[in-house]
């Protein structure tokens, strides 16, 4: 039993990372109606930025928050300079552009950082705690704590501030929002900035758990995040968080007890995406809205 709980805790930790990236996907999907395939690569790029800052000798948390700020600006710029120019096109065009961005960012990172394996500093101690026979890694607690803090801050921003309300309104009803003076196109850019920040945190948290990383760090994580977002419902932030945690725990448990499954985690995630899209396209929390006219 203790063994199972141990697997659950580390499953929640990896699920927290999936949840952050899934939230980023949901944030952009809600406002633009497209899945941002470049989300993982944006996160990978941010992780390299963090590595670079640390390599130049900045203290860990200074580098961490500086990376978030740079990522935010980067996300806003990507929306303004790239996505905005195709925003009036069909969804397929925008999706294609995000796939282009994926390739571009991957190539750029390989070029800038020479495609070598890098090691990102781990902010958490390698200690373990024994809680009633359950061995819990400090790193897992750290990852869960940071993910939770980010989710709470994002929730408070969206639900409790004037700009957060405008951001949600712009996603739900852009035309009416403009009539109320909301600068809708800037709200979209703000959404991309926030998504980039979420991705950056996910990348910075996940990189140390892998030992070393290169420009392909986030490709598998993006698949898991996408599965989490689809599971929760692509338009539901709560769904993204729940989906991420559920996926993390389930994959971890199955992987721990069924030997060959460790290699099948990615195909399993893809199968999950396919299954949900076929059987329950709204996911667990995707809302169907009541509308009267």
């Amino acid at each position: 039993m203790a063994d199972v709980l141990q697997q659950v805790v580390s499953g929640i930790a990896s699920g927290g990372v999936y949840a952050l990236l899934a939230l980023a996907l949901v944030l952009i999907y809600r406002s633009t109606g497209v899945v941002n395939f470049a989300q993982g690569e944006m996160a990978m790029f941010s992780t390299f930025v963090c590595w670079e800052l640390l390599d130049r000798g900045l203290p860990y948390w200074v580098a961490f928050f500086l990376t978030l700020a740079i990522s935010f600006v980067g996300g806003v710029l990507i929306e303004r300079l790239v996505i905005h120019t195709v925003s009036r096109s069909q969804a397929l065009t925008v999706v294609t552009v995000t796939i282009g961005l994926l390739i571009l960012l991957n190539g750029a990172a390989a070029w800038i950082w020479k495609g070598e394996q890098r090691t990102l500093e781990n902010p958490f101690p390698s200690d373990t705690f024994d809680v009633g026979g359950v061995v819990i890694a400090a790193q897992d607690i750290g990852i869960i704590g940071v993910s939770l803090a980010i989710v709470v801050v994002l929730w408070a921003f969206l639900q409790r501030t004037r700009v957060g309300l405008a951001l949600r309104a712009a996603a739900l009803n852009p035309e009416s929002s403009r009539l109320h003076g909301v600068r809708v196109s800037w709200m979209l850019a703000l959404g991309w900035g926030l998504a980039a920040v979420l991705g950056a945190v996910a990348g910075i948290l996940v990189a140390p758990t892998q030992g070393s990383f290169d420009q392909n760090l986030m490709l598998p994580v993006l698949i898991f995040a996408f599965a989490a977002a689809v599971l929760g419902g692509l338009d539901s932030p709560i769904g993204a968080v729940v989906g991420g945690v559920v996926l993390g725990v389930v994959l971890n448990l199955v992987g721990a007890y069924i030997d060959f499954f460790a290699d099948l985690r990615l195909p399993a995630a893809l199968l999950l995406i396919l299954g949900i899209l076929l059987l329950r396209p709204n996911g667990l929390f995707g809302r169907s809205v009541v509308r009267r006219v």
Partner: protein
Amino acid sequence: MQVPLLELEDVEARYGAVRALHGITLDVGERQVVSVLGANGAGKTTTLRAISGTVRRSGGLRFDGKALPRSPEAVARLGIAHVPEGRGTFAELSVDENLKLGAYTRRDRSGYASDYEEVLKHFPWLAERRDQQAGTLSGGEQQMLALARAFMARPRLILVDEPSLGLAPLIVKQLFDVLRTWIDEHGMSALVVEQNANVALEHSERGYVLEVGRVAVEGTADELRGNESVRKSYLGY
């Protein structure tokens, strides 16, 4: 003569290649309610959209003597609230959040609070429905919510598109009464597009009748009521 609050001079508007307005000239004075009447397709809705910038337009558009900006956001920030066709409800958001969005351009917290209280006085049922999803309100309630959102912006001019559409006569009368009262009490003006000419003229100082994108008749409410062709075509007696 005093400069009107809103002046349109020879305004044209088009949807793609289709021209919807062929040179509209009208004005709305301070503290006036002006109605725009006409059949379907006469260009009533387009006239409002031309003012708020949600359709491509050309010609002279002046608000308070200054040219109107092109983007809807900028027009809204000047103090023009547009209650659009379809009511513009944020269906997924709560009633309370809808009202907050109405006041989005405002920075004065105390003014917001007192206006909120006043809106609740006119629409008492809003108070108990604060947390309800706005999309679950009935059509009449959503129309009232749309008006309330516009009031919350404390605009100088309110544009209202067919408030009577699909609503029972009693509710229509209530809506117009509240609109008239609010405008008089706060020194605002309104330009109201309406098919129901009787109710509209009853609550207006002046009116315009549009036919195929042009002003066909204009005058005070009494003049329009006395005009035989207007009476036959739009008032039904």
